[in-house]
């Protein structure tokens, strides 16, 4: 089995890689990052902004154009693609996913996830369904990572700004040495690989998924499709 990952940014890639290791014991050599910058050379990149390589629009573009998926699936092998997208910008123009009422709604994550999946399938014109996993992070992948560090028992998607909360918790919990070594690391892939490395252990991952329903649903979906 070989899995390609299309994600908003490198931090998301790193987190998903660790989740795949923990949940289905997939070796890193059986995953590939379908990074947008590999489609461009440095001359092209010179004229592009950093944001053009790290947002939901990249994921949408890959879905709408479909070439990336067609080319990736042209290899004779059991292959899947993971599409990762956050819901934080769900209301933005061209994303336009309906967000259910969040407060006191136990189905919030599930309903929002399904709405995003419907939107992705619309972009994909309902193609490739059997070969795609949807990594819908509610509201951001940082909320998934926060499950490792938080002391709270509530779903980490409930924070208004999970990214901000994650850094607050990390600054409190990490040693000075680790703050310098991990948090100040310029390489987002390396930083989030280290921050989320506890996901690599199945036992730990099983515990963390209980603190974020969107993470749990994603992990469960991996098993359901692979067993099928």
């Amino acid at each position: 089995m070989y899995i390609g990952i299309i994600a908003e940014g490198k931090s998301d890639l790193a987190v998903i890689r660790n989740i795949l290791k923990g949940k289905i014991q997939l070796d890193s050599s059986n995953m590939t990052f379908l990074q947008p910058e590999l489609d461009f050379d440095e001359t092209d990149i010179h004229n592009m902004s950093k944001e053009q390589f790290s947002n939901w629009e990249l994921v949408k573009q890959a879905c709408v154009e479909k070439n990336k998926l067609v080319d990736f699936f042209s290899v004779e092998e059991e292959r899947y693609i993971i599409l990762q997208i956050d819901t934080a910008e769900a209301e933005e123009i061209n994303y336009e996913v309906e967000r259910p009422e969040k407060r006191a709604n136990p189905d919030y994550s599930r309903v929002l996830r399904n709405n995003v999946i419907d939107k992705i399938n619309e972009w994909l014109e309902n193609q490739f369904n059997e070969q795609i996993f949807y990594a819908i992070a509610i509201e951001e992948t940082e909320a998934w990572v926060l499950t490792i560090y938080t002391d709270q028992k509530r779903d980490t998607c409930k924070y208004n700004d999970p990214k901000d909360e994650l850094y607050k918790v990390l600054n409190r919990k990490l040693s000075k040495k680790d703050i310098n070594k991990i948090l100040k690391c310029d390489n987002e892939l390396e930083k989030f690989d280290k921050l989320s490395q506890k996901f690599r252990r199945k036992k730990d991952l099983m515990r963390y998924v209980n603190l974020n329903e969107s993470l749990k649903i994603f992990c469960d979906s991996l098993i359901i499709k692979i067993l099928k």
Partner: protein
Amino acid sequence: MLKTLTIENYKSIHNATIELSRINIFIGDNGCGKTNILETLAMASASKALVLDVEGLINRGVRIARPNLTFSSFTGIRQQNKIIINLELQGNNEAKFDIPSILYCDDDNNIYAVWKDESRLYLIDKTEIRLNVNNEEQTKKEPWLVNDVKQLTEYLIFNLNTEALKGFISNSKRIPLGINGEGLDVLLSEFTEQEWKQLQKYNYLISWLEETFTDKKDSLKFKGYKLGRSNSILYFKDKFMQKKNNVFSAENANDGIVHVLFYLALFISHKTPSLFAIDNIETYLNPRICRTLLKELIQLAKENHKQALITTHNPSVLDGLNLHDDEQKLFVVSRNDDGKTQTKPIRLKPKSDEKLKLSEMWMRGYLGGLPTNF
């Protein structure tokens, strides 16, 4: 022909089985173990040629280290002190035969140690091989099998060096061609008319090349064509220069031409090995030449019964491959999370809407074989 290579406990290769074809291209990250794969065949070759000493291995292109650095070493796994290599040979009539090598040393800490082979199968002469089965000596005389084992004993890994190709240095004593490209001029000077004809067909690969020739008497060096620091008697004629003054020596030639010529000579000559490896075939070559050269070499391999294992870091080499031809194979080599080398053949679906070249598929990450840590 060598059909299957099985390796256990060699450097980064803990355990691997590789189903080979006539032309086999290996791609992967730097340090993923591509050359280690080529080396295992060199170890088996040296064993069956009864030259398992340091010189026998160096002559085949093996990078020598202490035996305990040659056995696989992985965290949490007890190191084993035997390398197991099995080669499955297949004749034209589908007959198969296994050639095992179980290699060990008496002193695992001695870099100069002579390796030994428990399997006791070796080539006696051009007509028979001898093997020991259940403590009984047996001989095999089937021509295809003896020929395949003989070819195995001649195997080596070419890793070209411009200085050697141009005759400035001569480190490898293998004949007719040394592992760094030594002896190219002499091999060409021994070419038959037919071989020259075949070679000239590929002059089109080098835009300025009018003709290649050898100066057997080495007299041109006295006429100012070279300083004579190199021993090469190889010369070229440039099609753009004035006819009366268009000759120049390999000593003064560009690096690409000698590389192209070497590969063509290797695949054309019947004096060169039938089974060999080329490490980094792309060195010094323009991307378009890489693509077309590979395509032509594949054709020559079919015509002249050559089998090759080739590594490359240049995506354009892949564009010379036709993966719908069973005689051409592409392997992605990688190291898993434990550091163990693994290989995976790449096959494309017979009917697919993909519109990318293999080179682009590799560069975009669809094949693997790229670093993933940045």
